[in-house]
């Protein structure tokens, strides 16, 4: 029988198992390999810099970066601590994202449910989606000033079309028969929305949320590179002007870890809320 195997663990077995390999110790050996791979990269980094194959200005070693990390944690970089910069960046990102979710999901649902609303708004959403946010940052700064307002607005406008599109598409995946079945059982519109439409749409909405958050996170750093006086993006950019590669590398690592953490949070939320994903 043709069975789709969506869950990752079983999926990993479809092609390769059929290729005839034993699958007993796969999971634990996979974890071990991943860890080994990451450790090997760290060792390579350490080796290359310790042996002096590249100059310290070009690529500082792990020890130097760790030292810088502790330094900036306590004494800050050019006036702001690592904690303050991280909070500033996260604050802007999550602020814009939250606004987009709170307005975009309801709007997207409306657009999915009512063709008239979709017609009235979709062309705007579809134009904004592929539009690189940094291209209109200068306008936002002109309109909203050089402070946080323009940046939060930028992030809102980055995430909004993605979330709205996802919600709209999510509604479209609801099988019509279900809605009709519910109607025939005497359900009223609010109940249909809560018990039929939303559950079907949620997987797609969550996918959209993940993409939107990733986009917002990338954009906040770009915006800080251009026009800010604090934040992790500003820290990296400022360090580049003083050729402090140690701070740049530190900033990249912190940003990478933060990005991964944000993504994992959403994945966990997704798994917790949308526990019916993949089941029909």
């Amino acid at each position, binding site marked *: 029988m043709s069975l789709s195997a969506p869950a990752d663990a079983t999926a990993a077995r479809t092609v390769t198992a059929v290729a005839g390999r034993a699958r007993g110790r796969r999971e634990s050996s996979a974890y071990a390999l991943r860890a080994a791979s990451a450790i090997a990269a760290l060792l390579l980094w350490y080796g290359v810099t310790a042996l002096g194959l590249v100059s310290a200005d070009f690529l500082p070693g792990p020890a130097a970066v760790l030292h810088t990390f502790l330094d900036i944690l306590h004494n800050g970089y050019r006036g702001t601590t690592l904690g303050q910069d991280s909070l500033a960046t996260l604050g802007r990102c999550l602020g814009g994202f939250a606004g987009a979710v709170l307005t975009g999901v309801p709007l997207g649902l409306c657009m999915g449910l009512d063709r008239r609303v979709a017609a009235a708004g979709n062309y705007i959403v579809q134009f904004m989606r592929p539009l690189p946010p940094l291209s209109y940052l*200068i306008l936002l*700064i*002109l*309109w*909203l*000033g*050089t*402070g946080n307002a*323009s940046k939060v607005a930028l992030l809102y406008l980055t995430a909004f079309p993605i979330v709205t599109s996802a919600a709209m598409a999510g509604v479209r995946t609801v099988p019509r028969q279900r809605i009709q079945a519910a109607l025939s059982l005497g359900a009223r519109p609010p109940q249909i929305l809560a018990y039929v439409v939303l559950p079907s749409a949620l997987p797609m909405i969550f996918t959209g949320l993940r993409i939107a958050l990733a986009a917002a996170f990338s954009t906040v750093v770009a915006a800080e590179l251009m026009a800010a*006086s604090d934040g992790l993006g500003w820290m990296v950019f400022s360090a*580049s*002007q*003083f*050729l402090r590669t140690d701070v740049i590398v530190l900033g990249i690592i912190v940003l990478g870890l933060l990005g991964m953490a944000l993504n994992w949070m959403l994945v966990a939320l997704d798994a917790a809320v949308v526990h019916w994903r993949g089941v029909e």
Partner: protein
Amino acid sequence: MHLNRRTFIAGAGALAAGGARAAPPPAVNIAYFVETKPTMIAKGLGWFQDGMGAKLNWVEVGSGAEINTAIAAGSVDIGIGIGSSPTAAGLSQGIPYKLIGMLDNIGPAEEMTVRKAARIKSPADFKGKKVATPFGSTSHFRLLGFLALNHLTQADVTVLDMRPDAMVAAWQRGDIDAGYVWAPAKSKLLADGGEVYSTYKELDDAGYVIADLIVARSAFMAAYPDAVAGLLRAYGRALDMWKQKPTDAAMIVGQQAGVSPAVAEADMKEYDFVPLQTQLTDAWLGPPGKGGKFDGVLKRTADFLVEQKSIRAAGSLDTFRNGTDTNALARAAA
């Protein structure tokens, strides 16, 4: 949004003006450059703070264009060190500020620095090279003038937008062959394998005069005329200190700008800092309500920018005359 802010401040200003004219502003946002000039003395020793009687929020910028954007957006009230080129652009485009004073007549202080290794000896040698300058600044204006006078286009010469700090870093990496900028970045380039490629005589003769100015948002000025006069008075004090005690002045400036006192002194000697009284004469800004020769300089600057398609339309001579308000200057010089 900006309309609301302006209306609010204008309204508040009207009330305040009717009531207590001497009431200081709650806080002032001042855009400034980290540069080797007497302004750093007044900033560092707190004279600006005392003179204005208000909490000052210092916003560092890398070019006059940033000051234009910030004032247009309502984020900044006063711009110190904005160049004549962005000011001409701003007044032509209706940014709501007024020219209230001059810092200096620039002359050789902003200049083209070329990498010795790039062997640039004549205008034609610039072809295929990378020159960096902060876009929208007086240096940019001069660079564009230089290209125009020598029949070079931006397809021949790669012109890159960089703030002064970024330029120094790019120079050290070997990314750029030349930079048109002011001190202290200029001195750092010179110290790192650079040499002067003199353009200022050719440009000054052709009319590309540049100067550094002070602008104030119109609504702010209307609301707090005393604070503005206090600002200029404090600047006058700093200028006097440079004239009378140059060594001490250079020490403070050097410390504020992050360079040695010797470099600071050498940088400052290149500028023609016009004294307050002289600014009020017809040769420069003119007495209150009367205008001066500088209006013409701004007009010519704006016309060139229109030619370059940098701005859409230049203001008339009146735009610049009305855009200059030397009332506070007259009070400060008195």
